[in-house]
């Protein structure tokens, strides 16, 4: 592969696309697939063929269109004939979208191609859910066919890799990422450039790059959507990272529970290898890089980097004390760069558009955008990408469309089992790493669960504690025993048998587990309890033993034990 060949593929693909007057895109990401989007795609293809329109109407499967609640989703693009445009649409907002489409609607949709759209299926796209988003990581999601590398290349794919390999020194790439202000999207928000720099400087002939796609947070599916919608983007990000730090082997550690993502990744790797975009002497430079997939096997703790490394080595996924940090002694003792899917997916765009462009989005300390999986008691559940600094209120009430069934908002949970519940009084804080930490939660990997008045906060705390208790790997005592003890106290509270002294004991346990656990799982496990105790203490008090009230409200009926 040389630059001319890459250009040729892009031009050929764009020319082919510009021959079509219409493109019908069917969302075939996991959400819409489970509402039978594959049948919709088949029906549309048949209909187009029957009407003899295949020469000027293309039907294709695309990645996640975002509004999972209204799936299966279909968009229709009008492509200008013989247009000279780059193949990339100006705005990320689709012009015409149909919602809840079934195979039976295919005829009507195809018949309406050159006429007014089918009104009963139209999903308005001039609403905040679409207009308030800013897409970087998801720029190709819902636009390109994730199973065709040509479409990714036509959307300027692998141009960033070509650019760094032919015009930049590795340290210049690190400097560019550092200047962009990109921070780790896995949750902790460690500056990405700093991490790259450490691995680049570490001594060692063999280095590794690992993509952390072990999305274990219950209630989060951002990484899955990126892998299913635009897998080449992650491969390109990894290759750029490998060049910057001096690695020649990469691993993607992905959950076995995501079969579609695994399938598309495998296909993408094969396609990239065939074109010489992965492998030896990429673009005729000395740089060689290959990627292998490692399947996770369902252990939340493997999201922790040292546990993940143990798992890639084929062992039980248990963390170990740091230092040495993976940047110095990681996989098989070699310097290892571990980045989350979303972090790596930002990289090609940063290289293509420049660090300044990226740094211009978001807030002072949190640059760029963040992808959230918006779910729970909110109208528009689905996948969103918003600029950092947007307020929680804007996300929930504008993008999310508010709380359904006229109910009242109660709390929003971010960061999964490591995060906290944020009450109404903080809805106007900006979404950035520091602000969320200030109110007792974390940015996390991007799960955002909205709760209304029907949610019981003590139950929510118990739910997360049960999760942490089960997922504790058992290596260190504070986490193994502490999470079980905390769960028991929460269980006692929900049964209405606890006293105020039990709640004090719970607080002490939180303190011990947080400060003495070996890894992030234990250190953050108390967060859901602490944040609900902080903002919803009354709900705990209301469930104390009837004879042990602090005078806070009347006794509640005791819930029957399980």
């Amino acid at each position: 592969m040389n630059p001319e060949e890459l250009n040729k593929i892009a031009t050929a693909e764009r020319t082919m696309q510009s021959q079509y007057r219409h493109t019908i895109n069917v969302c075939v990401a996991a959400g819409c697939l489970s509402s039978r989007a594959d049948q919709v795609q088949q029906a549309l293809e048949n209909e187009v063929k029957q009407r003899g329109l295949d020469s000027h109407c293309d039907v294709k499967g695309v990645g996640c269109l975002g509004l999972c609640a209204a799936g299966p989703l279909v968009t229709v693009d009008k492509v200008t004939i013989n247009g000279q445009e780059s193949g990339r649409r100006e705005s990320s907002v689709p012009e015409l979208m149909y919602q809840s489409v079934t195979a039976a609607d295919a005829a009507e949709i195809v018949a309406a191609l050159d006429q007014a759209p089918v009104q009963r299926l139209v999903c308005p796209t001039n609403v905040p859910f679409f207009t308030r988003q800013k897409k970087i990581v998801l720029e190709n999601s819902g636009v390109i066919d994730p199973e065709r590398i040509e479409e990714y290349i036509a959307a300027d794919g692998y141009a960033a890799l070509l650019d760094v390999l032919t015009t930049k020194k590795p340290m210049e790439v690190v400097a560019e990422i550092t200047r962009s202000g990109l921070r780790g999207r896995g949750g902790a928000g460690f500056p990405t450039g700093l991490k790259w720099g450490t691995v680049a400087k570490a001594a060692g002939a063999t280095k590794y790059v690992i993509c952390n796609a072990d999305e274990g947070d219950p209630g989060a599916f951002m990484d899955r959507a990126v892998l299913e919608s635009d897998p080449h983007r992650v491969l390109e990000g990894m290759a750029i990272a490998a060049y910057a730090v001096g690695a020649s082997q990469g691993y993607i550690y992905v959950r076995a529970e995501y079969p579609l993502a695994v399938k598309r990744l495998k296909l993408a790797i094969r396609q990239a290898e065939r074109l010489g975009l992965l492998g030896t002497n990429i673009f005729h430079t000395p740089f060689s890089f290959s990627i292998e997939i490692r399947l996770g096997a369902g252990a939340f703790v493997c999201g922790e980097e040292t546990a993940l490394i143990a798992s890639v080595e084929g062992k039980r996924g248990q963390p170990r004390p740091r230092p040495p940090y993976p940047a110095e002694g990681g996989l098989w003792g070699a310097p290892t760069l571990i980045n989350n899917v979303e972090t790596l997916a930002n990289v090609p765009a940063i290289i293509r558009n420049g660090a300044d462009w990226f740094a211009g989005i978001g807030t002072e300390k949190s640059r760029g955008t963040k992808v959230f999986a918006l779910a729970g008691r909110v109208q528009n559940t689905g996948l969103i990408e918003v600029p950092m600094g947007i307020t929680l209120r804007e996300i929930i009430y504008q993008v999310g469309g508010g709380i359904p069934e006229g109910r009242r908002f109660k709390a929003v949970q971010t960061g999964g089992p490591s995060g906290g519940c944020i009450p109404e009084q903080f809805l106007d804080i900006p979404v950035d790493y520091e602000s969320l930490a200030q109110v007792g939660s974390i940015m996390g990997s991007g799960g955002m669960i909205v709760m209304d008045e029907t949610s019981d906060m003590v139950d929510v705390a118990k739910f997360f504690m049960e999760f942490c208790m089960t997922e504790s790997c058992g290596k260190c005592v504070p986490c193994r025993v502490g999470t079980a003890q905390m769960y028991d106290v929460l269980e006692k509270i929900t049964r209405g048998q606890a006293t105020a002294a039990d709640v004090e004991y719970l607080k002490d346990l939180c303190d011990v587990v947080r400060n003495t656990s070996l890894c992030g799982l234990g250190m953050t496990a108390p967060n859901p309890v602490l944040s609900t105790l902080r903002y919803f203490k009354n709900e705990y008090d209301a469930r104390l033993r009837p004879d042990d009230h602090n005078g806070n409200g009347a006794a509640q009926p005791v819930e029957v034990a399980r």
Partner: protein
Amino acid sequence: MTMLMAKPVAPSKDKRWKIVEATARRHGNARHALIETLHSVQEAFGFLDEDALRYVANLLQLPMSKVYGVATFYHFFTLRPPGKHTCVVCMGTACYIKGAGELISSVERKYGIKPGQTTADGNLSLLTARCVGSCGLAPAVVFDGEVAGKVTSSDLINRLGKWDEK
């Protein structure tokens, strides 16, 4: 002096062991291929029994304790054969908030099995998942590998009824 190891013999003549051997070979029968090899056994046979674990231990020259340790550490691996049909209720946060607990109770009431158990006739296994990533369609249930969204208790019982042995 080189030790000559006898080539490990597969537990049965079943052709599926060839797939398992191919997986191990692709990784040079290296010890770090353990998880990949176990995945391949589970994909081929549906679960990992003692014979399988012993065979994998021999293939990769690992002590049985290591193999057993890994197989029991990860939730994805199961040491018991699943029922003829499996019903996986997602217990991710979004599904939980939208009533996944009630779905589980309804199966418990109708079939008398708890999550992780199989009915006495071996027809139905009830399982829970940490998150199947279909949070936008909560609550989600996976019926024999097919995800269904926005499931209600009556949907669930109806769907399972179709699997009941006549």
